[in-house]
Structures are given as C-alpha cells and as structure tokens.
C-alpha cells in the first residue's frame, strides 16, 4: 500500500508537470471526462424473512431497471482517477418471494445509488483502449416507496388504512471493472460493470420488518467527451 501511495504521488507529480508542459491529451492527469449513456441496474437480492406476523419464510425480491446515466471522471494522474457516476433515479418493483412468491408487485421503491470511485486505468495515457478497475463507496439512497393493494392485503391493510413501506438508505462498498476506447482526442466510448454490496431494511406500517441484501450489479455504457 505504501509503495502504491508513493507511486501515486510520484506519478501525479510527473503528470502535473507534463500537463503544465501543455501535453494534455488522451487520459492524462488533469483530464476531465464527461459521459452520458444508460445504466441497467439489477439487484441480486438475498432476502431475510419478514418478522411476525407473517407467513414463515416470507421474502422479497427486487426487479431490474434501466435509466439514462452518465458520469464525470477526473484524472488525478495518468493512471489514477476519481469517478462519479450519475444516473436518473431507478424505480424498482418489489415482488414477493419465498412463502409469498407469485404474489405480484408488493410495491415500488426509487433508488439513487451515489458512488465515488477511485479508479486505476491501465496502459499509457494516450492508448486508445484502456481497461480500468475501480473501488468506491456507495450511498444507496432509497426513497418514494409505495405499497400496493397486494401488500395491504397480505399484511392486513386496506385502502382506507394502506400498509406503508419504508426502506432504509445505507452505505456500501462497490467494485467496478470497465473499458474505455478513445476515437480521437475528445470522444470516447465507455463501458463498465459494477457490483455493489449494500443492504436495506424495509419497515411496514403494520409493524413487520425485513432485511435484504440488494447487492446490485449495474452495467453502464456511454459516450464521453474529454476536455
């Protein structure tokens, strides 16, 4: 780790002098990269059991969603970068699993995973094809939860007293593997696969709770511009 840090410092020093020399092109230190595209978010849910009162083994699953997305990357050095993916909020269906499998849509939740990655981009700064790896911290913001007639029905609610759902937002760890290909000085395409390790705890207004690992895999593709 120490050596790595040393090399970061060294490379960044080297890079900034290069940048100062006016050699900024490709993915050199100091480059800003802005991209836009789409992200497909696929929760890989490992659900706990809902607390009493509920049918034993009552579980949930969460559906996939695709949204417009983008991101901003800043090259700290010729290899190290900070990346901030951005996306429109995802809207996921929450469906029954386990003892309540097949019960249909129990509700929906909006998700805005906010992640800051530290990336290492392989190869020389002006190589066209650069694979990269990243690791980051995600704040999985869950909000605008809604229930449904099915959720109320199986938990003892009714239209006049519907069962409400709330899901905790939590921090988690996220790993990233991607590839960017530069057409020219400015334009590039970028693709990445991201795996997050985040949990949530959903609480119903009828008192039951359920813990679930969401652990989503996201696939992102986009077109970007460097400046």
């Amino acid at each position, binding site marked *: 780790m120490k050596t790595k840090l040393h090399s970061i410092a060294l490379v960044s020093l080297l890079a900034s002098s290069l940048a100062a020399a006016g050699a900024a092109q490709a993915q050199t230190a100091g480059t800003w990269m802005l991209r836009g595209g789409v992200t497909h978010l696929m929760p890989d849910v490992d659900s706990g059991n809902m607390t009493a009162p509920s049918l034993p083994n009552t579980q949930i699953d969460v559906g996939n969603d695709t949204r417009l997305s983008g991101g901003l990357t800043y090259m700290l050095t010729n290899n190290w970068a900070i990346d901030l993916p951005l996306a429109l909020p995802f809207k996921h269906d929450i469906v029954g699993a386990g003892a309540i499998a097949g019960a249909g849509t129990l509700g929906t939740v909006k998700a805005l995973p906010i992640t800051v990655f530290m990336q290492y981009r392989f190869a020389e700064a002006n190589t066209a094809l650069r694979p990269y790896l990243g690791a980051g911290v995600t704040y999985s913001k869950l909000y605008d939860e809604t229930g449904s*007639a099915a959720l109320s029905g199986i938990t003892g609610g009714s239209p006049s007293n519907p069962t409400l759902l709330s899901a905790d937002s939590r921090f988690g760890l996220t790993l990233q593997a991607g590839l960017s290909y530069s057409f020219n000085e400015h334009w590039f395409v970028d693709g990445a696969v991201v795996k997050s390790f985040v949990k949530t705890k959903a609480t119903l207004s009828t008192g039951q709770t359920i813990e679930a690992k969401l652990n989503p895999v996201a696939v992102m593709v986009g077109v970007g511009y460097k400046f």
Partner: protein
Amino acid sequence: MKFLKPSIASAIVALSLAACGGGGGGGDQSPAVKFTSLVSFGDSLSDVGSYKTPGIASLGGGKYTVNSATAQIWVDRIASQLAVPTPCPAQTGLNASGALAAFAGPVTNHAECTAYAQGGSRVTNPIGPWNAALLASPDPTTAFQGQLGQLTVPVTTQISNHLAKTGGSFNGKELVLVLAGANDVFMNLATVGTTTTPAQAATAMATAAVELSNLVKTQIVGKGAKYVVVVNLPNISLTPSALASEASKPGSQALTDAVTQAFNSQLASNLNGVQGVVLVDAYAQSTDQAKNPAAYSLTNVTTPACSSTSPANPLQGYSLTCSSASTIAGDVSRYQYADPVHPTPYAHDLLARLVSLGMSRAGWL
C-alpha cells in the same frame, strides 16, 4: 455534449429531491380486478350477522368471534380491502324457543344483501348444529342447542336463493367467497360409534366435498361468476373443541383430522384447474399457526378467548353471544380461538391475509 446536460441536470435535481426525503405512500391500492360486490356462501366462519336478533344484539353478539363494534371476520376484511360495500346478511332471524326464547327473531330476507353464510349451515343438508329440528334429540346437550333455532340454510339453497334474486346468473364482477363443510364434520362425527362407523363418516365428508365442488362448478362458475375464492376446511382437529374431545375420547382427534382431510382432498381434486377459482389452503395455514404461533404473533392457540362462565354470555362461551365484555381475564387480542371452534377477529385477519395472497397470486389484487 449538449445531450448530456438534461440527464445530469435531472440527476442533480433528483439528488436534491432525494435529500429532502421522499415520503412513501400507499401506492395504488385499487385491485387489478375492479370488483363491484361481494357474495358469500358458507357457515358461521363467514356469517356477518344472520342471527343478530335484538336479543343477541343486546349481549353485544352477532358474529362467531369476539364481538365488538369494530370486530371484522375475514369476509368483512376482504370487503374492506376491495372497497366494495360492507357485506350484510341476506337473511336474518332465529327460531329460538324454550330457555333461549328471548333470542328469537322473525326470519326476514334482505334483497339488497348478498352475504348468505349462516352459522350452522352445511353443504346440502338443511339440519346443522343448533337448528330447531334438534329439539327432539335424545342427547340433552343437542336438544338444548336446538332451542337457539339457528336457520342453517344449506349452501346449495343459499346459492339458489341468490340466483333466484339475480335472474339466474352472476354478473362476473362479484367476488364470490365459499367456505363450508365444518358443520358436516361435526354432524357426521356426532353419530360415529352409535349409528355410523368412522369409514362412513369419511365417505360422507368426501361426498359433501363433491357436492360443494359441483355447486361451485355448475351453480357459481357455470352461472357466470369469474372470481371465486373457495377456502378449504381449517384443521378442525387442532381446535380447543377437538383437543377437549381427545382428552375424554382418545382417538377422536385423529378421526376428526381424517374426515377433514377426506373433505379437503376431494375438494382440491375436484376444483383443480377450474377457471376462475382460487382454492385457499386454510388447513395448511391453521396447522402451521398451531405449531408455529409466534410467527403469526399469536399468543395462544389452544384456549378460547370467550369465557364459558361469564354471566355476560348465557350461551356458555359460545362466540355468537361473546363480546369483549365476556372474555377471560388478560389480553386475548392475539388468541387464535374465540370459542372452542371459532376464530378471534385477529385469526380472521390472518385468514383474510391468506385469502388475499391467493387472490394476489391469481392476479386479482
């Protein structure tokens, strides 16, 4: 470059909105199928107040549960969930006599009401428990019960009464609930050892299941109903009544279970694959509730909540006249049983949830 701006701007807006904390909501509470009414056929487990005569009402009774102003049985709960009109009894009255004459009420039909289920009703036999015809019984307990004079209109007649009212058909927008057979269990078991054998009782129950499923197929689905929930018999052998019988008459619990299962298995095989019918397995859930009460937040699954000695209930713990004024001491809100066979409002709620699950799986919610 330009095309990026809206999405990033929106994301930032979304971020700030999210930071404000989006309040969750109930979402779309209207069911997928827009039901217009509820029609219910069956027995005491579905009776919304057929026998709520002035005498019964004066004790705070009327339904077979721990009665109160807000007590709902599963049929009421399903109606609330679907936001259809509150079910009201299609026929009211009580042919009470003798010591129980104060409970009597004229037998009246209510054209606007479609909850036909009555306490004591059987599938096709018109004489169920506590019917006035039992006054002549040589058994003193049975003869006493005959004084209450429950109407016990059998399910087959309940259905024909409904069809007579509607011009011979269902409109296809009602939710039809069917739960019957428990009184056939009680009546068939009552004669085992005297005039019948256990095998005969099991055969009679299988026959009752065939009759009920044929009614569902030909007189309900066959007459235009598109959404029918049939609930099978709960595990009667685990009721306080069956537990008490087992103590005095070993082997009766197993026999009760055998005849119940004879009914349920025949019902399941006859209704399997019938379009528009959801068969709800109350047997499995009630068995699990007895074995695993904590999962359902049940605090007691063997003791009736209604006191059998309370002066506020002259029917000795019978839930028709049981109210929160005549329960045993302590918190009985999470008890399974109101009386030796009937569920509390909470247990009714659990049944309603199971029915909702079945309806949800069918895509109706």
